[in-house]
């Protein structure tokens, strides 16, 4: 019995290994990672299962769309891109493991992936150790600048600071902070408190709830007791649904208590239910309704593949990452990591959110900040923008009030 069981098992283990060595022999260990043969392999690493799949699957789809577009135009350096899709399973060690696999076994030229800061922090040492390249497509808490990561989402001075500027401009002086209990909201709130202190704003309360928390009546009572002018919301995931449903049923709508959110995009609005969140504010760099021919083409192409789907900021940032990498590789004349990194500085493309330029020293991108209001149709309408792309400043060095943070 035992022997019978082991024989197929052994075969199953040995066969792929043998195939791998055979393939390795054929291509003869090229110096150019991922560029062996007629295709260039690129990794796509997002959570396709687990709690984060809600958001990450859509980013994977937009990255695949960008890869397809590039291939339709002849690929990169005359070679077609071949995506290798892996599932991070909403589990941070899995992200590190799969990153290692993509780099070592698939020998991909670069990886596009990650969503939560926890997954990025888990992958960071893997990419630094292997001197491989990661493109991270989501807004985050800043205070990081790895030489092996390009950040195509907003850092704090391109999202949170403009959000605060907007509230200040509207005369909202008393702010209540609500967030999920992990690194992004806690860091963001540290920045918000420093900003408030320097700008004569008052923080009436700062509350964190565990990820996945669904009971908000006590918190709503506390907010109603504090009587703030506005709430700054850094809740993440499903908690947002419970928070807005219970806030609304306690009688707080956008007119009575504006809430500025930084983790709610078009996709999330559908799950919260438009009546519960209509009129509330969000801060991002891109909306499906952002005007421009490039965005019209992007929305049309995406909806042609995914019927009834919406496009959101992180999806657009993922789509951008692929195009920016391809442009850098073309400019470098190679997909070799150091060459791409060098060529990437200063690359500027016309993308759905407008002009996007890579900042060489920080490896972040220039982005236009946009404040939006959630409309009756569930889409987000821009009510304010920074007009010009803002230079990324992940350590907030150019803001005197932020000198104590790090």
């Amino acid at each position, binding site marked *: 019995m035992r022997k019978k069981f082991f024989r197929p098992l052994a075969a199953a283990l040995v066969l792929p290994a043998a195939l791998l060595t055979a393939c390795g022999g054929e291509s003869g260990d090229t110096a150019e990672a991922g560029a062996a043969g007629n295709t260039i392999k690129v990794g796509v690493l997002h959570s396709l299962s687990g709690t984060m799949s809600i958001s990450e699957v859509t980013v994977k789809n937009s990255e695949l769309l960008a890869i397809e577009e590039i291939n339709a135009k002849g690929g990169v350096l005359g070679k077609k891109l071949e995506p290798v899709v892996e599932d991070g399973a909403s589990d941070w060690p899995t992200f590190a493991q799969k990153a290692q696999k993509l780099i070592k076994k698939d020998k991909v030229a670069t990886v596009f992936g990650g969503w939560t800061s926890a997954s990025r922090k888990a992958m960071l040492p893997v990419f630094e150790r292997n001197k491989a390249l990661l493109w991270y497509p989501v807004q985050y808490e800043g205070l990081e600048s790895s030489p092996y990561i390009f950040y195509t989402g907003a850092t704090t001075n391109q999202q949170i600071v403009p959000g605060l500027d907007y509230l200040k401009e509207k005369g909202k002086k008393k702010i209540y902070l609500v967030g999920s*209990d992990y690194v992004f909201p806690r860091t963001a709130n540290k920045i918000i408190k420093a900003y408030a202190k320097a700008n004569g704003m008052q923080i009436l309360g700062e509350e964190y709830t565990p990820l996945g*928390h*669904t009971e908000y009546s*006590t*918190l709503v009572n*506390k907010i109603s007791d504090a009587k703030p002018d506005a709430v700054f919301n850094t809740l993440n995931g499903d908690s947002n*649904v419970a928070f807005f449903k219970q806030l609304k049923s306690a009688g707080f709508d956008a007119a009575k208590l504006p809430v500025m959110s930084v983790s709610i995009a078009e996709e999330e609005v559908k*799950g919260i239910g438009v009546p519960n969140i209509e009129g509330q504010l969000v801060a991002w760099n891109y909306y499906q309704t952002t005007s421009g021919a490039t965005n019209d083409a992007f929305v049309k192409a995406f909806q042609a593949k995914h019927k009834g789907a919406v496009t959101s900021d992180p999806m657009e940032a993922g789509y951008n990452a692929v195009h920016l990498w391809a442009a850098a590789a073309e400019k470098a004349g190679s997909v070799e990591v150091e060459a791409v990194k060098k060529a990437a500085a200063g690359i500027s493309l016309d993308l759905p959110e407008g002009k996007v330029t890579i900042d060489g020293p920080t490896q972040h991108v220039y982005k236009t900040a946009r404040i939006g209001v959630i409309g009756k149709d569930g889409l987000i309408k821009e009510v304010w923008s920074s007009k010009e792309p803002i230079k990324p400043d992940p350590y907030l060095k150019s803001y005197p009030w932020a000198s104590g943070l790090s």
Partner: protein
Amino acid sequence: MESLLNQVPIGLSIGAVLLLIALGLTFTFGQMGVINMAHGEFIMAGAYTAYMLQGWAGGQAVLVALPVAFLIAGALGWILERTAIRHFYGRPLDTLLLTWGVSLVLQQAARDLFGAPNVQVDAPSWLTGRIEVAGANLPYSRLFILGLAIACVVGISVYMNRSRQGRRMRAVMQNRELAAVSGVATGRVDQFTFFLGSGLAGVAGVALTLIGPVGPSLGTYYIVDAFLVVVAGGLGQLKGAVIAALALGMLNSFTEFWTDASLAKVIVFAAIIAFLQFRPQGMFVLRSRALT
């Protein structure tokens, strides 16, 4: 002071939610001793039932869904009991693993059927308002959940004490062998008990659409709380579940008011652990002459 008073109805409504999600478990876990990790997914099935019925019931979907969800979740539970759990009676660890696996399968099934993002169930328009009593703010949706919890408790206690089938259920729970030799078909009673417990999870799921997210991982947010209520109240004790749910709701409401949500969770857990040190069987204990 006014906001402190507000915490009393809030505690009551948290307690009602806890009670509603735990009621089904008092049957399947409390009476039959099955650690059903898939209970949360039966709650999810109830919530998605309301979503599906929205197509033709429109704004009244929540109301229409209550009986339908009871039948659907009940049927799911019955199938689970018939095909799998009954082969594992008396093996709690195996049952735990089995039902945990089933819960993962059901979550993925929901993801494949309805997509990974949350869906929205519109609350009926007559549930969107609120009343103010002595400064306290009471949303209708919370009152509805409170009313539903009371209705379920009354219904169950009448059923358990007055109906023939309910008495059989209690007989099997108190002493399975004696019930069997007295002519009670214990297997059939088990089937029906599991159907009932799972069906109540479906009802809870419909109510939860009013206040929380409706998505594939919905069940995982409530399953731990449900077990806590049943364990603290005493296995199989309806009275215990009611008191435990209200006590935990109040404790949660006030500790969160004075501290924050994360710390409140820690305090509630610590309080339950301390309580179980003194009363490992929970608040109420079933006294039986059985030797087991």
